[in-house]
């Protein structure tokens, strides 16, 4: 059941009337990798996933699972399985019947499909709940059942639509770790849609950041975090300041900014401002600086650094950085930017 396949999207497009939701995207995801489609709501990530699953028709372009073109196949013939947002478990069926549903549809006899379903419940550690109805389970338990149900058809690619968004923050972290562990053990391609950059960073081998129906940037979480190519990426992924130096714009990680007093000599690029806020965060101190000219940047400094300098609100400082650590941004038209404040 651990056969897995690569996914390839070729010029995949989805239009709803005159609105283009997904704009001719090309994407290759190697077999066995964990891929996160990341982006703000309305960026086309869910439409893309639903097209791959076969629940949304394709306007133009192709979807390839392994060597097979599945663009016009029904969902069940694509070797994909989908785990739905808020799980979509059948409320009238017991856990074991939910998991065995696909086999029942194939006409597998009851004892055989229950035996198979039990194996999968074992995999997700839910065998004790086989007779319960979904309504009697907690969110995390429902998710495990949904996972078992999706896996029973031995899919080559598992599609997960915001699988963690229905859980409370504590459970989310736990299930996140379990998803990653399961993917590693099964060695299966997972495509996971999320709007949380922390989720994508923690889980993905490949992050595909989408914006306005296009792929803004793709790569490993470290590549994206350390080398954002556009202002949108830098802001969405968080933990960066976007600073303009002359005609060029750079992204500088908040923990790579050094603060100097105006009297000190600075060699690298720098920008001057006034401290407008100081937040103690335990492992670090966040200093917000109002740049002369309007915008705000924030620096993340260690407690020791903070103790030696003891910055106070209203003080003038110079923020400086090593040019090798900054990423030059290409200005794109993508102006939909979310607050980057969440990043750590």
């Amino acid at each position, binding site marked *: 059941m651990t056969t897995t396949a690569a996914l390839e999207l070729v010029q995949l497009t989805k239009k709803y009337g005159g609105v283009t939701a997904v704009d001719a995207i090309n994407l290759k995801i190697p077999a066995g990798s964990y891929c996160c489609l990341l982006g703000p709501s309305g960026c086309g990530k869910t439409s893309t996933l639903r097209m791959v*699953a*076969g*629940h949304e028709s394709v306007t133009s372009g192709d979807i390839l699972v392994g060597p097979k073109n599945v663009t016009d196949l*029904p*969902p*069940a013939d694509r070797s994909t*399985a*989908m785990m*739905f*947002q*808020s799980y*979509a*478990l*059948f*409320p*009238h069926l017991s856990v074991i019947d939910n998991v065995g*549903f*696909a086999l*029942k*549809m*194939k006409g597998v006899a009851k004892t055989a499909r229950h035996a198979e379903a039990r194996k999968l419940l074992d995999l997700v550690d839910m065998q004790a709940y086989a007779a319960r109805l979904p309504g009697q389970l907690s969110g995390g338990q429902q998710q495990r059942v949904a996972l078992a*149900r*999706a896996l029973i*058809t031995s899919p080559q690619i598992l599609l997960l639509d915001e699988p963690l968004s229905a859980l409370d923050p504590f459970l989310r972290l736990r299930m996140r770790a379990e998803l990653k562990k399961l993917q590693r053990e099964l060695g299966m391609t997972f495509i996971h849609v999320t709007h949380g950059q922390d989720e994508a960073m923690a889980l993905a081998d490949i992050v595909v950041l989408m914006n306005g129906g296009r792929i803004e940037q793709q790569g490993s979480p470290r590549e994206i975090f350390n080398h954002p190519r556009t202002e949108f990426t830098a802001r969405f992924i968080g933990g960066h300041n976007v600073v303009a130096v002359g005609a060029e714009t750079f992204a500088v990680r908040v923990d790579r900014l050094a603060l100097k007093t105006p009297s000190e000599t600075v060699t690298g690029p720098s920008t001057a401002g006034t401290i407008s806020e100081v937040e103690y965060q335990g492992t670090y101190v966040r200093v917000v600086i109002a740049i002369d000219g309007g915008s705000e940047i924030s620096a993340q400094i260690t407690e020791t650094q903070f103790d030696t300098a003891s910055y106070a609100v209203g003080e003038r400082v110079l923020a400086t950085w090593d040019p090798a650590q900054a990423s030059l941004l290409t200005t794109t038209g993508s102006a939909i930017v979310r607050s980057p404040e969440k990043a750590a």
Partner: protein
Amino acid sequence: MKQHRKTFVAWLQAAPMMLVFALFFLLPLLFVTVVSAWDYNEYEMIPAFSLRGYSDTFEGCIAELPSLCTILKTYLNTLKLCLLTWALTLLIGFTVAYFLAFHVRSKTWQIVLTLLCTIPFWTSNVIRMIAWIPLLGRNGLVNRGLEGVGLIRQPLEWLLFSEFSVVLALVHLFTFFMVVPIFNSMIRIDKRLIEASYDAGATGWQTLLNVIIPLAKPGIVIGSIFVITIVMGDFVTIGVMGGQQIASAGKIIEARLNALQFPAAAANAVILLGVTILIISALTRVVDIRKEL
């Protein structure tokens, strides 16, 4: 002290409904049951305990065996009409509700089409029945049309004042009572469940049988209760559309009332109530409505 106050306020809030219920439902029901056990002669009822109302109703039922007595024949016939009407309203109602819930995408159109279903209710019951007569009568549109096309030489007699016309009129009148509760159940089915079913490889029919029908069950049961209780007690539609020739449970009560035999009419009402309660309790055994609501 506070607890007492709370329960008192709760009772107070429920009081108006309880009062209406007791005054206009429980009390009359009690009267009917009491009267059903009174004696009567040709022109008056006598307030003395007697089961004559019941014994008259079942007269000859044991003596005439194995052939059926009038009351049993009448009930069987009523049940037959009821079953036919139920099956047809369920089939049509389910189909209409399915169309409204799953094929009509926009909410506005769902509302417009549902309102369209209520148009027959803008006129009175009797007019809706009478409207069938020029259509189905001996010289009605249907017979004329069929004769014109040359399919028949003589007008079809069974079109009007027959069991056919009774069932037709009942289905026409009561399908909407099936549509609404089933539509209400269906609209609450998460569309993702249907996608999940397709994702698991189910065909359209398999999805209908394994997902939609089980989840629409409360609506089906509620609609069935509406239709069955109305048809079991109906005497107007059966009277008008059956040309006053078809016996039914409701018709017996009407006949007894017209003969001023109130205890006998009351006894029949109690029997009808008992039969209807039996059917409903059998239905609710299939689905626990309270749990599903």
